[in-house]
C-alpha cells in the first residue's frame, strides 16, 4: 500500500517536473537540431545540424565570445579572491562591533540590479576611458559576484574556526604552511561553490556588458541575444543550448579539477 502511494506521488512530481520545467529545455534541444519546424507540426520536419554549422563554422564571433566570456569570468574571480578572501575570514571567524551592518553592506549588491547602477557607472567609465575595455567590464562584474564569493568563503571559514590553525601553529607550522595545509583544503568546497557562482553570474551578464563593453566586448549573451529575440529559432536554440551547456560544463570541470587536487593532497598526507 505504501509502495502504491509512493508511486502515485512519484508520478505526480515527475509530471509537474517534466511538463513545466523540462519540456522547454527538451524543446530547445530538439529545435537546435531541426531543419525546419513549420507551425502545426508536433515534430520537426527533419533533423540536421545547419544551426550548429552556423554557430561553429559560419559565425566567427562564437569562439571569440566563449574565450572572452571565460577570460572575464576568470579575471572577476581573481579580483574577488584577492579582495574577498580576507573579508570572508573576518565575517566567518571573528566577532566584532558592527558585524551585522558589515554583513548587510557586503550582501547588499545581491539585490542591486545591474540596470540601477550601470547607467551611472557607464557615464563615469566613459570619462575614465573604461568603456569598451575588458577592465571596465570586469570591474562592473565584480559588483554582483563579490558578495557571493565572500558569503561562500565565509561559511567555510566559519566551520573551520581557529582550532586547526592553532593546533598547526602549536606544532610549529609557518603561516604559509597553515594556509597551504589547513586553510586551503578546508575552504576548498567553499572555493568551488563561490567560484562556480561567480562564473555563472559573470557569464550571464548581458546589459552590463552591452553598455560598458559598448558592443565591442562580445560575450556569449551579447552575441546570442539577437538570435533569441526574434531571429532564426534553430540558431537561437543552438546558442541557448550551447550557453546553458557551457554553464553546466564549467561547473562540472571545476568540480572535477578541484576534487582531484583535493584527492592528491589527501594521498600525500
Amino acid at each position: 500500500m505504501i509502495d502504491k502511494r509512493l508511486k502515485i506521488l512519484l508520478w505526480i512530481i515527475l509530471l509537474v517536473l517534466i511538463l513545466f520545467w523540462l519540456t522547454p529545455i527538451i524543446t530547445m534541444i530538439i529545435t537546435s537540431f531541426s531543419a525546419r519546424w513549420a507551425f502545426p507540426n508536433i515534430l520537426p520536419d527533419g533533423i540536421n545540424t545547419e544551426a550548429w554549422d552556423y554557430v561553429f563554422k559560419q559565425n566567427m564571433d562564437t569562439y571569440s565570445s566563449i574565450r572572452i566570456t571565460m577570460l572575464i569570468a576568470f579575471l572577476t574571480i581573481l579580483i574577488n579572491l584577492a579582495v574577498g578572501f580576507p573579508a570572508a575570514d573576518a565575517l566567518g571567524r571573528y566577532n566584532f562591533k558592527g558585524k551585522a551592518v558589515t554583513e548587510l553592506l557586503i550582501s547588499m549588491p545581491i539585490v542591486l540590479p545591474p540596470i540601477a547602477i550601470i547607467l551611472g557607472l557607464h557615464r563615469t567609465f566613459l570619462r575614465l576611458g573604461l568603456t569598451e575595455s575588458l577592465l571596465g567590464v570586469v570591474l562592473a562584474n565584480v559588483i554582483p559576484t563579490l558578495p557571493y564569493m565572500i558569503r561562500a568563503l565565509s561559511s567555510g571559514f566559519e566551520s573551520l574556526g581557529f582550532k586547526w590553525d592553532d593546533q598547526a601553529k602549536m606544532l610549529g607550522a609557518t603561516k604559509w604552511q597553515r594556509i597551504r595545509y589547513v586553510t586551503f583544503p578546508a575552504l576548498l568546497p567553499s572555493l568551488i561553490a563561490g567560484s562556480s557562482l561567480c562564473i555563472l553570474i559573470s557569464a550571464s551578464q548581458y546589459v552590463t556588458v552591452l553598455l560598458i563593453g559598448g558592443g565591442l566586448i562580445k560575450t556569449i549573451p551579447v552575441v546570442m541575444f539577437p538570435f533569441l529575440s526574434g531571429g532564426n529559432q534553430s540558431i537561437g536554440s543552438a546558442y541557448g543550448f550551447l550557453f546553458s551547456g557551457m554553464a553546466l560544463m564549467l561547473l562540472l570541470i571545476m568540480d572535477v579539477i578541484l576534487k582531484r587536487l583535493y584527492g592528491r593532497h589527501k594521498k600525500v598526507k
Partner: protein
Amino acid sequence: MKASQNNLRRSKLSKPYRLLLPSLITLYTLIGIGVVSAILETLKHLNTSMQLFSSSDFYLSLGLSLRLAFTATLMAVGLAIGLLYLLFLLTLTQQQKGRTPTKNTSTIDPSRIFSRLFQTPMLIPYIVSGYLVFLTFGQSGLLSRLSFALGFTDSITAFPILVNDPSGIGIILAFVWKTTPFMILMLYPVMTSLDSKFLDMSRVFGMKPTRYYWSVLLPHMASTIAFSGFIVFAYTLTSFEVPYMLGATYPKTLSVSAYQLYTGGSIDERHMALTMSMVLFFISLGLGYLAFKHAQSYQKHLQGGRNS
C-alpha cells in the same frame, strides 16, 4: 617580548576591520561611482529629470513592474510550498519503507533526487529561460502546436498571445520557471533540517503527516519562505533581460524603459533614464534592507532558541 605581545593584541582587535577593508572599498567605490554620477546628473538637470515624475508612462511602467513581480513571487512561493509538500510526503513514504526489516542502506532518497532535478533550471541562464518560454508558450510554440493537434485552436493566431503581450504573461512564466527552483533550493534544506524527532512526537500525539507539514514544517520554514520570496520579488521587480526579450513594446517595465531611454539618443531622455535608474536603485535598496534585517532577526531568534 612584551611589546610584540601588545602589538599582537592590538592587531587582533582591529584585524577584522582590516580584513574587510579591501572588499568594502572595492564594492562601494564601484557602486558609489554609479550612484553618485546618476544623482549628480539628476540634480544638474533637475527640470528635465523631474519631468519623469509627471509622465504617465513612468507610473504605467512602475505599475507593470510591481504587478509582474508580485504575481510571479506569489506563484513561485505557492508552487514551491506545494512541491515541497509532495517531496515531504515522498520522504515520509520512503522512511516508512526503510523501517521494514530489510534495511537497505544503498537506497537513494528519491525526494533528494527530485529536489536536485527541480534545481536544474537554476543552471539555465536568465536570458535562455526567457527564450524557453518563447519556444514553449509563443504563438508558434509547442503549446500552440499541441492545442492545434488536439483541436482546441484552428490556426496559429487563434492561440492566445502569451509572449510579448501587454499584460506580461510571458514574463511572469519565465520568472516563475526560473525562481521556483530557487525557492526549492532555499527551502528544501530547511525542511529536512528539522529533527525527525518532531515527526515522531507528532505521531505520538496522533497528528497526520499533512497536518504536520502545514502546522509544524511550514511555520519552521516561514522565515526562509519570507526571505527568499523577498529576494525573488526584489529580483523580478528590477530584472532586465527577461522583460526586454518577452515584454510588449508598450507598456514597458521600469528597467526596460530606463535602458531604452538611456540608449535612445536624446539628451533629455538620458537624464530621465539616469533618474529612473536611481528610482530602481532606491527601490532595491529598500527591499534589500528589509530582507536582510528580516534574515538577521531570524538568525538572532534561532540563536536565542538554542541558548534557552
